[in-house]
């Protein structure tokens, strides 16, 4: 069934390519095709005892699919971990396509084809049960992303993506091959790793390769360029969905294949393996630096890109700590990030669709013009900033608890301060784009875009009320790793340190809002136009000469303090490496002088060297 689904998707790729001139029909075909695998998977999951209504129960996953390809075998199976990420991807993907149906006008066929290919690749990765399958689908996904980046046509984006993608691929390949050298098999199920150095190096390489896609610093260089120079529906899926695959891989390799005991065998610090500790520290650094860089951006897409980098860092922290609490937190954060970042990128797309502007300092006042877009973005921003009226808080809370539980004294403050930093850029988006001086008289975004955004907001609401459901989803994953699921009910999550009851928060908030609403509605009010604003009494007719939108260089004092430290650090390093390669390349190029006599002398010299070598031997 799943192979048929893949076949259908491939077919759909060709069909949408042919429908290049009819974007709407192509979109419809792509959406239908993107829903099919989900059905196929659910039916497959149903065979194995998973069905959608009861997907919250702990499950058994067994049977797998083997497909002999000649040079290798593809082993596919659905696992709890894969299932979790599949749900994220398969729900956000059709919605991104729905958004695209009104957003993408030029060369639509190529767009949908590329999107379907990325989806195909990511499905394969999630179902893979051996290294070959994993790598094969991983790279299919990787180059279809490249195809989408090419549509943007930005030099830095293309070069940085392809070189980092290649680095990631090669690290993975190297790692897989080292594991093959140690175990003689590519099958994940048969890999029994020992505690040798080779295994450690292999695992580190694999994790580093995966971290490239997960945009962990300092391997994140490609992400801002790619996120900021591609079409928004795609970026929404890339940042929301595909970047999670890196963390899926980390979970798979660190806990599914290597296992906690193996990781601990290389040394532990307070019951956390050094391996995990390093990952957590890198994750914390990423969370902080990503946030600081996001605050400094003026381009809306770049801001969101760095924000993605920062938020993904939290997932790495959770995976690094590696307790049930932390892993649940990491999965929860992955879930949240999928949806809120998709909403934010789509909202940015909707804003661009109406105004044609990306710069925050050039936008403004759209909150009253595009109220539904604004509200969706506001909700996503609440989730991003982990305000406890969305599900965003529960994930961060789990991670904080996990870090405190394991006594991560230096990581926890960094995480927390990165969380505060998120308020800064969150407000920059809100103010710069949606609040302040209304500069554009535009309509609300098209209905398809609104529907896509609001459907993506929905999970944020659901898991606000029922954070326990995520813990339910995480339970089979944890039990596969030999861990106990965290104690929870649908509303209450309990840890050794404290408890978090969402119902209490929600009801208290409702009560408080009710009281303040009564207080507020007590007196009538009139709405005045934006021009009626206090500017030391300056009369409104002067407003056409001055902009009242204070959004350019919004955090200038902040940039003065942090800018010298953080701006373009990793990028500078990458440029230096590239320059070194170019230096070597120039050297190699100069060997080809273009003179025939030189080449003849090369041959002669080569001959003499060979003879000399032989004589000496």
């Amino acid at each position, binding site marked *: 069934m799943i192979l048929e689904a893949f076949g259908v998707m491939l077919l759909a790729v060709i069909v949408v390519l042919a429908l290049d001139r009819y974007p709407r029909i192509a979109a419809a075909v792509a959406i239908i095709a993107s829903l099919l695998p989900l059905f196929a998977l659910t039916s497959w999951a149903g065979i194995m005892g998973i069905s959608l209504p009861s997907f919250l129960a702990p499950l058994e996953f067994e049977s797998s699919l083997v497909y002999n390809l000649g040079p290798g075998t593809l082993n596919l199976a659905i696992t709890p971990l894969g299932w979790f990420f599949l749900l994220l991807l398969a729900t956000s993907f059709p919605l991104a396509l729905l958004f695209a149906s009104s957003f993408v006008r030029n060369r639509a066929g190529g767009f949908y084809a590329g999107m379907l290919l990325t989806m195909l690749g990511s499905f394969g990765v999630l179902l893979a049960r051996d290294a070959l399958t994993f790598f094969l689908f991983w790279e299919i996904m990787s180059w279809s992303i490249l195809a989408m980046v090419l549509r943007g046509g930005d030099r830095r984006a293309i070069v940085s993506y392809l070189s980092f993608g290649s680095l990631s691929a090669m690290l993975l390949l190297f790692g897989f091959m080292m594991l093959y050298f140690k175990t003689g098999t590519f099958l994940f199920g048969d890999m029994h790793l020992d505690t040798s150095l080779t295994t450690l190096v292999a695992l580190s390489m694999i994790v580093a390769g995966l971290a490239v896609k997960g945009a962990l610093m300092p391997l994140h260089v490609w992400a801002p360029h790619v996120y900021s120079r591609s079409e928004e529906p795609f970026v929404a899926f890339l940042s929301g969905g595909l970047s999670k695959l890196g963390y899926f891989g980390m979970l798979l390799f660190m806990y599914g294949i290597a296992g906690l005991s193996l990781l601990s065998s290389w040394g532990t610090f*307070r019951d956390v393996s050094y391996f995990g500790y390093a990952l957590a520290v890198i994750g914390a650094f990423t969370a902080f630096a990503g946030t600081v860089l996001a605050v400094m951006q003026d381009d809306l897409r770049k801001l969101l890109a760095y924000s993605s980098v920062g938020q993904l860092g939290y997932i790495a922290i959770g995976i690094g700590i590696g307790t049930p609490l932390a892993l649940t937190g990491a999965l929860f954060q992955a879930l949240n990030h999928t949806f809120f970042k998709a909403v934010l990128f789509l909202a940015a797309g909707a804003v661009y669709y109406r105004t044609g502007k990306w710069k925050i300092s050039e936008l403004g006042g759209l*909150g*009253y013009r595009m109220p539904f877009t604004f509200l969706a973005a*506001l909700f996503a921003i*609440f989730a991003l900033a*982990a*305000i*406890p009226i969305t599900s965003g808080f529960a994930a*961060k*809370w789990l991670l904080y608890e996990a870090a*405190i539980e394991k006594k991560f*004294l230096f990581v*926890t*403050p960094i995480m*927390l*301060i990165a969380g*505060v930093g998120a*308020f*800064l850029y*969150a*407000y920059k988006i*809100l*103010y710069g784009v*949606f*609040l*302040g*001086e209304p500069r554009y008289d535009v309509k609300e975004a098209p209905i398809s875009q609104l529907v896509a955004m609001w459907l993506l907001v929905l999970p944020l609401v659901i898991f606000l009320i029922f954070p326990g459901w995520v813990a339910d989803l995480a339970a089979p994953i944890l039990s596969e790793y030999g861990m106990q699921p965290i104690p929870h009910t649908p509303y*209450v999550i309990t840890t*050794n*340190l*404290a*408890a*978090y*009851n969402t119902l*209490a*928060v929600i009801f*208290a908030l409702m009560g*408080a809002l009710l009281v*303040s*609403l009564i*207080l*507020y509605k007590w*007196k*009538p*009010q*009139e*709405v*005045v136009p*934006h021009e009626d*604003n*206090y*500017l030391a009494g300056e009369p409104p007719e002067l407003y056409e000469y001055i902009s*009242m*939108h*204070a959004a350019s260089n*919004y*955090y200038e*004092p*902040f940039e003065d*303090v942090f800018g010298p430290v953080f701006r373009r650090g990793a990028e500078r390093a990458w440029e230096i490496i590239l320059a070194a390669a170019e230096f070597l390349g120039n050297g190699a190029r100069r060997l080809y002088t273009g003179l025939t006599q030189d080449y003849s002398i090369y041959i002669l010299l080569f001959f003499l060297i060979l003879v000399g070598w032989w004589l000496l031997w």
Partner: protein
Amino acid sequence: MVDLIALGEQILLLAGMVTLGFAIGMFFNGFARKVTARIHNRIGPPIYQGYIDVFKLFAKKTNISHGWIFDLAALFSVAGITLAFLFLPVAGFTLLSTEGDIFLILYLLAIPALGFALGAGASGNPNAAVGIMRALILMLAYELPLVMVVVAMMIHYNTTSLATLVQMQSGMHWAIFVPVFFIGAIIVDMALQGMLMEKPFDIAIAPHEIASGPMVEFGGKHLGALMLYKMMAIVVETTLFVDLFLGGGVVLSVSQYGWIAYVVNFLVWFALITLVFFLALLINAVFPRFRIEQALKFYWKYDALAALLILIWVFAGVSI
């Protein structure tokens, strides 16, 4: 049925405490102005001035709004600060604090701030935007030493729940009596100065520079709601400090002394938050204002460095 009655009692208690909290907050407004006036060798307003001001603001005949996003400020700031208050242990009453922990409170404190910022931004006044920018950077600044000390404490006491923390400090085992957390208390008090936006950290409001910053467009009932928020925020933030370092003001055990304990604890709590606020006022009365990057550097250099020492101390203590 019994459950319903218990629930009703609980809700009444919460409502009563919230009302009391607002009342104390309004009292603090007059108190602050009186204290400052006395330090300036003035007579100052009557101590009930806060009540009058709020009443007057809500009694204004006409109110203006810049649209529905602008109105969110009033709604969210009052509701959010009430929510934060409810999740704190106050004077021996746990209220809802067993349902959440310190991180929840830190994030709940962001609801009114973001709501306020939302409304201020929606007014479209550049002064408001600049004020919010300063407030957010200031928040980033003071949060670092604050969370460093809080994390050190949480790891030291091995809990993140404030209710548990207060319980562990009962019997006068206050955290402030632990030498290292005495330093911690000083650090957090510095952070509190920023949280309360008293001088030298009243950068966001700065009436003479940016026309009271975020509040520039708020008048009448909107300003009344914001004043309620500001006043309640003083109560919440000082209570947070008292809960962290001064055992939440709990001196008598309820099981031993019955209702007398409630009264005494309440009075002690009130005395302690007044004391903490009074300290902040003393600093406020004599200092000029920092620039925002000076504040950032102050917190991240000196305050955070001191907090780092505490972290290192706890680090050493834990690993032994």
